[in-house]
């Protein structure tokens, strides 16, 4: 599946074939922003959202992304929703995209037109962790243009067991506190292959390969989900008043895995990504 960079989020999510093939991606898209924003936002634009926080926007605050070397006022500031994985003293902001979370789980590839011609990059390699150079957010070079996004055909094999779950502070038009995309290929009652990624926890959409390894070959049951959740957050540490996010992330991982194993719903719920998506009328 090749998706042009200028395709609108809403058009993509509502494309019947796309939603059937990649239901967790469609659910993630529809859980993002608001209906109005989804009507305007594009695939390429979504990938290129800045990793940011309130201090990035506040011109009076120090922010290494805005002004390399200035420092990070978020570090000892109001930071209950900041990163718990992959952060550095240079930046503790999170990447806000919902869309990118299942995309990295499914090994999406970005097509880039640059000075040296066209090249490809795994989406997972597009966003960078802050390290010493938080101002360098992506692997793009000057003059690069994202022209398309590709989802490998194998990603369709997960279509029957794929969910995106997002906890947020209101039901729409709010970034994830933490989110998770989970998908399985289940054969003979066993997990043949698992995919897992988290959102709202790091400067990039966070692929949890250690957790996937825990799940591969196991029988789908709550104990193994919990073990996978622990593995996914093993490296996590609070960057401020956000230790709860480590616990919450593990629970969301376990929930997303549980729901994915239960099976993709016939249609995308009215409250996409919501823990309450199963509630009648919700």
């Amino acid at each position: 599946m090749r998706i042009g960079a200028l395709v609108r989020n809403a058009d993509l999510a509502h494309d019947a074939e796309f939603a059937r093939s990649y239901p967790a991606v469609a659910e993630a898209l529809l859980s993002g922003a608001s209906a109005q924003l989804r009507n305007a936002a594009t695939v390429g634009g979504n990938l290129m959202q800045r990793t940011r926080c309130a201090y990035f926007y506040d011109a009076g605050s120090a922010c290494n992304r805005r002004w390399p070397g200035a420092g990070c006022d978020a570090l000892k500031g109001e930071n209950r929703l900041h990163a718990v994985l992959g952060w550095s003293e240079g930046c503790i902001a999170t990447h806000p995209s919902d869309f990118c979370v299942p995309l990295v789980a499914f090994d999406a590839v970005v097509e880039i037109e640059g000075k040296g011609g066209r090249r490809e990059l795994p989406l997972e390699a597009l966003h960078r962790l802050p390290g010493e150079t938080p101002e360098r957010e992506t692997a793009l070079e000057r003059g690069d243009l994202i022209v398309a996004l590709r989802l490998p055909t194998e990603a369709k094999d997960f279509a029957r067991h794929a969910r995106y779950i997002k906890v947020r502070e209101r039901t729409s038009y709010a970034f994830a506190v933490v989110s998770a995309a989970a998908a399985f290929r289940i054969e003979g009652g066993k997990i043949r292959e698992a995919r897992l990624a988290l959102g709202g926890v790091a400067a990039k959409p966070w692929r949890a390969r250690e957790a996937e390894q825990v799940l591969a070959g196991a029988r789908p049951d709550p104990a193994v989900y919990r073990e996978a959740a622990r593995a996914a957050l093993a490296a996590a540490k609070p960057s401020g008043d956000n230790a709860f996010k480590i616990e919450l992330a593990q629970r969301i991982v376990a929930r997303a895995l549980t729901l994915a194993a239960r099976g993709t719903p016939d249609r995308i719920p009215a409250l996409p990504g919501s823990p309450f998506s199963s509630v009648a009328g919700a």
Partner: protein
Amino acid sequence: MTVELSLTRDPAHIRHGSNIGQPMTRTDGVLKVTGKARYAADNHPAGMVYAVIATSCIARGRVTSLDVAAAKRYPGVIDVMTPAHKPELAEDPDAKGNPFAFRMELLQSDEVRYANQAIAVVIAETLEAATEGAALLSPRYQVEIARVGLDAGEAYAPPVVGIGNPAEVRHGDIDAGMAAATKLTDATYETPAQYHNAMEPHAIVAVWDGDRLFIDTPSQGMGFAQMRVAGLFGIPPANIHINSPFLGGGFGSKGLISGPQVLGIMAAKLIGRPVKLVLRRGQMYGPVGHRPPTRQRIRIGTDDAGVLAVINHEARVTTSSFDDFYEPAADASHTLYASPAIRTAHEAVRVDTGTPLFMRAPGEATGSIVLESAIDEAAFACGIDPLEFRLKNYAEVEPTTGKPFSSKALRQCYARAAERFGWAGRPLQPRQMRDENGFLVGWGMGTATFPAIMFQGNARAVIRADGNGVMETGAHDMGQGAWTALAQISADSLGLDFDQLTFRSGSSDLPDAGIAGGSGHTATVGAAIHNAGAAVIAKLAELATTDERSPLFGAGNAGVVARGGRLHRRDDDARSESYVEILARAGLAEVDASGSGAADAAAQSQYAMHAHGAVFAEVKVDPELGQIRATRLVGAFAAGRIINPLMVQSQLRGGMIWGLSFALHEEAVMDHRSGRILNANLAEYHVPVNADVPPMEVITVDEHDPHVNPLGIKGVGEIGITGSAGAVANAVFHATGIRVRNFPIKIEEIVMGLG
């Protein structure tokens, strides 16, 4: 022949009910949905230019330099107004003339009192040029350490809270109450700073013509605004013409004219051209008031049977470093529950913010969520159902004053809402109910209350020779429906069908209608309209009943009644005469009369006057993830006479949603070092979206109140928040067993509390 003028509480001439009480849709609805309603910022007088405020990004200190030259070099920039270059004012903007005068920043110095304060105004031919000019000012500061939060400094006892309320009130013997109590709830709660966030930002279009001033600006109080502007510019109030037909919400933030609006007037004066100034969303977090954060300790003592012995409600609030407004949070405990001993007390801390001001249910909202949560705690401590506990401690008279209530149908509110909600059989213990999906389910309730306040308002009524009528009053429609409800009262007050009436409003050139605040606008202006109508009908009646040619001759003024454009004999309905006939025979083009409305001091000294209500909430909580979803809200309210059930339902519904917002969403996040607000935008300052609003039901309970005012109106603008916020919070406790005492309730408290 003696003319019997009957202008008592039950005037002889007027039959209310033909229009009052009808669920009429908004008379301005079509204008609004078609975009034809002209709000302040929609005005573009010829030659108009744009002003943009440059705001401070520090919360305390001084501006040491502004690059005015850089701003002025930018193409299109006309001038830059700064402390060194501005029109002279006739009055110090820091002067305190009356309790409603608050200090404002009009570039009187280089001092910075809070983040987002105006430090300069750039005037340009286009909005873009003014915006760029403001950015080019590149201010430098001498920064002082900002005082932020409820522990920023020494607390002190404020002289008064709200407008003139004593900071401490004692009723009964607190020590004896504490000693007598066998069960004591002692809990400390915190509520956050909140900002009004009216959809329409504060805006002004100002045009000077000599020493006359024409302004389009949203106002909840044109009379006050006229007085303030008159003082500042040294011109008579009558020279100031304010046009304010529609407000895109006010919630108290447009009750008093704000500094930025006056800066627009100054800019127009400085350059001698019409100027438009509109605040950006982020600029509304500072100079136009807010609800301050509070920390409230409340002690509720009862005997073993749950009978109250004492309520001791203490509130610490913040105010600005330079002015005095004190959120009367603890006052919420004055009226609701019959405790033999009640103490309410306030203390304050000065911080580097704009001055907090009236925000929808000021004091009642912050106090109610705490009182209702603590009452829930007390009921739980006694092992008593929260509704039963409230009924057991029902106040038959106002507890702190001993006055009887002018009317109080709260029992009916409890009963109707509880029945509709299905409260019976609710388990006392929390965490007992689950839905079919395994979500925790909780039910909570709260009592709603708000005082029946009146201000002073005037109206002028006219009956014309063609039989049609006019009612004029400078009232304010914030979206609550004044254009409709006041017109309904007008039509009945003139004895006319609705389509025979011209209702004029929204301008300071009309009789001063007082402030649209305190939930008292319909009551105040309604009374003025009623009295103006009665007075003009009395004139018609006098013409008719003293004229031998009239079928009404000799009936006496009290012997006629106005209806459908005619006066009828009270004792013989068949004998009547139309307004047209009466005026034609008298040879008059029209008759007019004025009326005013205000609180009746005698009745107020005799009775406690409050609206009441009961709100029941259901929430569901994810037992692992802690996410909360409100799933049902039912409220029943008794607020005297209901003028328009549609508008009233809408007001109450909106208030209840605000209560939900208070409990679960709304909070201004301030950096504890810089004093800057980090979420000064509608993306991050969360209010509920449609998907967060549950199915709601609003019940209005009939209440006849002969004492509050001639029409028996109590007002519904603010009461909906009270009760609702506590009901939602209590439902969260009932679902989870977790009592969160910091609002809004955050996911981490639930996640970590669920274990």
